[in-house]
């Protein structure tokens, strides 16, 4: 792995992508809001301007037209309308017609469509049935205007006008296009800048992430001094803290290894002591039998009894040696668990049980073979049994019940101790706790069990734990992985 291989990601996306993308999205959202606001302002302004221009147009026309409308002078009305085109070019009037009080056209700027002296077509007049002076019709790109001509408090006629507002609509489209283009360009530009800025800003995090990743594989590495020196104050402090933490973790690892070694030696000592004890017991009897043979070997019944005692003693020693060899043999290739492995456990635990005068409740209900790795399972159960021996009072009983439930191998280890302390319960039930030992005073037995559980994707359950005793269940998923390795 190199410094460039980043895996500090969230939901599968790198921060250097997600942050600029989020910023870009926010900017896009702001752009949309701003665009809508700007467009609505443009529309309002256009509408206001159009209203004002239309009012000015209608005011100007009314003032000029009234004398001519009073006289119903066709030419003068036409002349005024025709000349007003140039004067109000900004309004882009398509046509304007003036009617008299009887709704007959006096003149129109489009005389062929609205001939003088003809009634205003009802279909056209209907388009102007609104109260205000002006009404915008976006669909037709038209502004329709109407104004009553009042002379001496009497309506003497009306002005009808239609203006082409396609230029205003086009202006609105231009504004929209310009806003969208500018905002899109800005958003894209800022996203790109954001991407590179984030990459630059997250550079130290990237480095730290890589060092942490490397640490997962083994010993944690220190960030080199020259790399720390290149960082800003905040990251320099972070890197120094990381280095301190890495040193602490490494030291803890060393201590744990030492501890494990000590425990191993202690175990070897205990084993040697147990074996010596186991050998010593028959040895005493065997020596007595040998002594009897020496003294009374001539006597048939003494000779037979002594030989039987010697045979029993030697058989016991042979069994002990065999189980020890089976357990600690060098060949530790993965293989499936058999009932014999569990019988060996009985032999292995016997010295410890005898020492504490414990009775064994041994229930093995498995059909050969069970597809779980034999060595770590047996090791884990042995450690649980040893713990049970240690916590149970002298003369009491410990139990082992083994079986297969569905796709799971289960082993329940029961003691008659005073129940588990809280920190130990928490340690047993916590997932991934096998990465470090419980604590120094608790020994490494439980840690070894947890490590085996983690390796085999299994777990521990506390079935019950009170002042009368504790039952811990080891659960290992059964698979066919070791079937052919047995």
């Amino acid at each position, binding site marked *: 792995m190199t410094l460039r291989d980043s895996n500090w990601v969230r939901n599968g996306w790198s921060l250097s992508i997600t942050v600029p993308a989020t910023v870009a999205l926010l900017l896009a959202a702001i752009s949309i809001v701003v665009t809508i606001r700007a467009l609505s302002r443009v529309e309002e302004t256009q509408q206001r301007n159009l209203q004002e221009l239309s009012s000015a147009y209608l005011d100007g026309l009314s003032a000029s037209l009234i004398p001519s409308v009073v006289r119903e*002078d*066709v*030419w003068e009305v*036409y*002349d005024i309308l025709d000349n007003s085109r140039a004067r109000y070019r900004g309004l882009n009037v398509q046509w304007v017609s003036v009617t008299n009080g009887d709704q007959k056209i006096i003149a129109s700027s489009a*005389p*062929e469509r609205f*001939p*003088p*002296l003809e009634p205003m077509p009802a279909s056209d007049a209907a388009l102007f049935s609104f109260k205000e002076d002006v009404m915008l019709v976006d669909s037709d790109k038209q502004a329709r205007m109407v104004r009553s001509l009042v002379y001496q408090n009497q309506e003497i006629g009306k002005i009808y006008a239609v203006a082409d507002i396609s230029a205003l609509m086009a202006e609105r489209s231009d504004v929209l296009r310009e806003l969208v283009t500018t905002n899109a360009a800005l958003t894209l530009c800022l996203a790109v800048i954001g991407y590179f800025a984030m990459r630059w800003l997250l550079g130290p995090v990237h480095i730290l992430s890589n060092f942490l990743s490397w640490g997962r594989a083994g010993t944690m590495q220190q960030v080199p001094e020259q790399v720390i020196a290149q960082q800003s104050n905040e990251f320099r402090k972070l890197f120094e803290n990381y280095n301190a933490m890495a040193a602490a973790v490494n030291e803890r690892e060393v201590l744990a290894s030492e501890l494990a070694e000590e425990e191993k030696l202690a175990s070897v000592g205990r084993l040697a002591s147990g074996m010596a004890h186991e050998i010593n017991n028959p040895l005493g009897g065997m020596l007595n039998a040998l002594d009897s043979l020496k003294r009374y070997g001539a006597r048939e019944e003494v000779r037979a009894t002594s030989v039987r005692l010697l045979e029993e003693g030697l058989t016991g020693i042979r069994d002990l040696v065999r189980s020890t060899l089976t357990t600690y043999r060098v060949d530790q290739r993965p293989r499936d668990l058999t009932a014999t492995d569990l019988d060996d456990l009985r032999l292995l635990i016997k010295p410890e049980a005898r020492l504490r005068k414990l009775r064994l409740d041994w229930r093995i209900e498995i059909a050969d073979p069970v597809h779980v790795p034999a060595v770590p399972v047996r090791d884990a159960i042995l450690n649980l049994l040893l713990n049970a021996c240690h916590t149970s009072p002298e003369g009491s009983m410990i139990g082992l019940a083994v079986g297969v439930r569905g796709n799971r191998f289960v082993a329940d280890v029961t003691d008659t101790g005073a129940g588990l302390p809280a920190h130990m319960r928490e340690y047993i039930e916590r997932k991934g706790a096998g990465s470090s030992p419980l604590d120094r005073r608790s020994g490494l037995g439980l840690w070894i069990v947890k490590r085996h559980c983690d390796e085999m994707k299994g777990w521990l359950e506390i079935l019950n734990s009170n002042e009368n005793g504790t039952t811990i269940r080891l659960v290992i998923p059964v698979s066919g992985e070791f079937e052919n390795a047995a």
Partner: protein
Amino acid sequence: MLTGLRRTCRRSALKALLGLGTAGRAWGASPAGIVFGLTPVFLNNDIELLAKLKAYLSRMTGRDVQLVQRRTYEEITGLLLSGQLTAAWICGYPLVQYQEQLALVAVPLWMGKPLYQSYLIVPADRKAASIADLRGDLHAFSDPNSNSGFLVTAALLAEMGESPDRFFRKTIFTYGHRNVVRAVTSGLAQSGSVDGYVWEVMSSLEPDLTSGTRVLRKSELLGFPPVACLKRLAAIREVSLIRDALVAMSDDPDGRALLGMLRLDGFAVEPSSLYDPIAAKMRLVRSIDG
């Protein structure tokens, strides 16, 4: 005959320039100056043209010249008859209407003659062959006191035993020959009566406007709208000065520039009999109206 008259005119102008005129000042508007009336007989009010005309007349007459414009012939004729104008460029119709009070000062020459025509125009795409096809139209006249823009068509209808009000559905007066062309081109009017001289000049200056019209009928040649004065003031010096200045226009660079703008060849002194055909039309129309 016309050449001889023009020679006479030039002599009069010379006399006027030499200060040999004898008339007194009978009008009240400007005792020391000249007040010259203009009708919209020609192209629309052209500020440059008016400025040049004023400058030319002032220089040639040696008097302060004031140009007076009115919208209608009636207004200018009224000012002229009331003695408020030294002279005015009016139409042949008012001249014959008030032939007892008015006298000719000079007549413009167009295409070398003191004559012009009245045109009956229709939209360019209209299929009409004669005036009979125009019955029921909205017809645009120029001015009720215009010869070409009213009287000629009214007389033509009178010959048919009709009057404009009966023959046409509606008549409108646009008070300008150019406006008649505008009214017909735009479709406001279905036909119009217009000064042939104005239409021809417009067809070279504003072809887009005249191209929307078609000349349905040209009248016979009639006396060009003249410059006239009150008969009782015809002998005063200012009138002579005006006549001389007008007649001398074609001999003067500024005058020629003015004539160029007006598309005219000059001014001449013509006999009042030039307007007899117009007087005959007037009588014909009056006989129908009566």
